[in-house]
């Protein structure tokens, strides 16, 4: 029978490998049977309170316990929304406002922090929930009624209006993704992951669900280690890590400082990366250091559940070449559409659009914003069929591989994160000391530049922004101007400012 529920992964594995460690960090190790027990206890507690079919916020620091809470929500017939207390205050407020959750699962040690937010939800302590007796009939009743298009999580992604968008994914899209990804990257019971992504991004699906599916093990790498390359590689060796799916900047941090001269990841055989361009010079250092390993570039927007395309590196690249995005996983199709919604000719640039089961359900409580990008396939005038318009522009190279070209709007990729420059601008414009601003991205230097007019000094503005935006969205350079250049029809002249950014670069 075809799998309908992500929890079937866990249930098949727990009977086979009950005592194997599933998820571990420096403080806590959880075996499959602990994950199984705790998540079913949490599910029982939620359902017995009548909380089913609800978004449940999991307000916990990254830990194996937070992961068990996620699955607990799914057992309860709910969908989890990870919020990490390290996220900026203003962003968390916006997320609570969008969700209006009926319940929040919280780690007791940080419940004070949570109580400073107005969210209106019932407070549920993790340590109490896991002491709830497992109510077998209640859980099987929920399972009986669940269908594979029911949601399982919401993760929030940058929105150009300044309000983050909650992407809702369901069992079916996650199962489809995990099956394809596992085949492409060759996961197995022997796989030992070192996780890098925060749990509030869909990037962590790559570790969470294959761990359940295969009975693999995921180590949650302490964030601090990503500052210290030698220690990071030593950590990989200590835990005999053989698989990493990391953002490019985490990998280049290691190679750029010539860490491999000192120490190499001895067990690493599978390296997947994505979310931004891998500079070829750094990539070469990785391949030289790990000649046995496979390297796979992954590409995909959150809206189509994790990743969508892959390219297994099979040749050398010149320093000015870009590693292709490759081809779609099975069971999804990439359409390249021109401005007039026609298929792009071979080599011609078009918008990357995705068709298939991998499409998420859309944005939470945002039907209008959903309808803008989850649209009827313009090539199909016969029956309803949704595609997701990524806003990314791409083309096929002469080998038929998909190449990412650029964005059609002001969305950027910086340090592995997807960022709307408009969201930064919207937040800057909220500050009382600012009357006008423009945010640009210097791609060559990988720096976010902000120009503004107002009373605040650069330092004051940056300090104020820290409350509103995540660290990776903060401008790298701020420039206060008497006035911003305008175009003939009165818009901020981004081109002139961009030239100024480029000239500054040359002057240095």
């Amino acid at each position, binding site marked *: 029978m075809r799998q309908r529920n992500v929890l079937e992964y866990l249930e098949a594995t727990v009977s086979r490998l009950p005592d194997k460690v599933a998820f571990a960090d420096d403080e806590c190790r959880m075996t499959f049977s602990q994950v199984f027990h705790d998540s079913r206890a949490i599910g029982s507690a939620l359902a017995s309170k009548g909380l089913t079919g609800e978004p449940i916020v999991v307000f916990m620091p990254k830990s194996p316990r937070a992961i068990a809470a996620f699955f607990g929500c799914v057992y309860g017939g709910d969908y989890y929304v990870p919020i990490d207390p390290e996220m900026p205050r203003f962003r968390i407020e916006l997320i609570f406002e969008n969700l209006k959750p009926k319940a929040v699962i919280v780690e007791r040690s940080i419940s004070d922090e949570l109580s400073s937010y107005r969210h209106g939800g019932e407070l549920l302590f993790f340590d109490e929930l896991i002491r709830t007796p497992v109510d077998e009939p209640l859980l099987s009743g929920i399972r009986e009624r669940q269908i594979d298009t029911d949601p399982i999580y919401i993760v929030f992604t940058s929105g150009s209006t300044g309000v983050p968008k909650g992407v809702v994914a369901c069992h079916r899209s996650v199962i489809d993704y995990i099956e394809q990804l596992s085949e492409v990257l060759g996961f197995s019971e022997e796989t030992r992951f070192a996780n890098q992504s925060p749990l509030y991004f869909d990037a962590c699906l790559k570790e969470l669900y294959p761990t359940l599916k295969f009975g693999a093990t995921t180590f949650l790498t302490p964030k601090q280690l990503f*500052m210290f*390359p*030698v220690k990071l590689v030593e950590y990989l060796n200590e835990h005999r890590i053989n698989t990493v799916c990391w953002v490019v900047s985490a990998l280049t941090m290691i190679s750029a*400082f010539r*860490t491999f*001269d000192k120490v190499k990841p001895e067990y690493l055989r599978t390296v997947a990366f994505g979310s931004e361009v891998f500079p070829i010079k750094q990539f070469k250092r990785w391949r030289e250091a790990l000649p046995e390993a496979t390297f796979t570039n992954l590409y995909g927007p959150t809206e189509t559940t994790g990743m969508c395309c892959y390219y297994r590196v099979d040749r050398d690249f010149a320093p000015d070449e870009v590693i292709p995005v490759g081809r779609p996983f099975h069971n999804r199709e990439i359409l390249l559409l021109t401005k007039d919604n026609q298929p792009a000719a071979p080599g011609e640039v078009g918008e990357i659009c995705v068709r298939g089961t991998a499409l998420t359900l859309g944005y939470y409580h945002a039907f209008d914003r959903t309808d803008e990008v989850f649209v009827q396939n313009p090539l199909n005038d016969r029956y309803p069929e949704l595609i997701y318009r990524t806003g990314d522009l791409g083309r096929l190279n002469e080998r038929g591989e998909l190449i990412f070209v650029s964005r059609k709007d002001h969305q950027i990729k910086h340090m592995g994160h997807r960022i709307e420059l408009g969201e930064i601008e919207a937040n800057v414009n909220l500050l009382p000391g600012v009357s006008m601003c423009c945010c640009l991205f210097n791609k060559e230097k990988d720096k976010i530049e902000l120009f503004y007019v107002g009373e605040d000094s650069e*330092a004051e503005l940056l300090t104020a922004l*820290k409350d509103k935006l995540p660290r990776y969205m903060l401008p790298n350079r701020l420039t206060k101007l008497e006035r911003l250049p305008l175009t003939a029809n009165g818009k901020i002249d981004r081109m002139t400012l961009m030239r100024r950014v480029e000239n500054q670069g040359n002057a240095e």
Partner: protein
Amino acid sequence: MEELIEILTDLHPDVDFTTTEGLVDDRILDSLDIVSLISEIDDRFDVAIPAEEIIPENFNSAKAIYDLIRRLEDE
């Protein structure tokens, strides 16, 4: 030292780097900061910090970073 304080203050204008210690332990600096700091130090002091020196002890205070730069300059 002044130039180093300037680089650090550009990263975090709200921190007084002349007195603050525990820059790593108290999570004032994150990995993005360390990466930009190291490349700025390379640009402005012409000192390439080798991987084995990129450890918490060498980045916990402005003084520790400065001592590291001086030590590497001498080598």
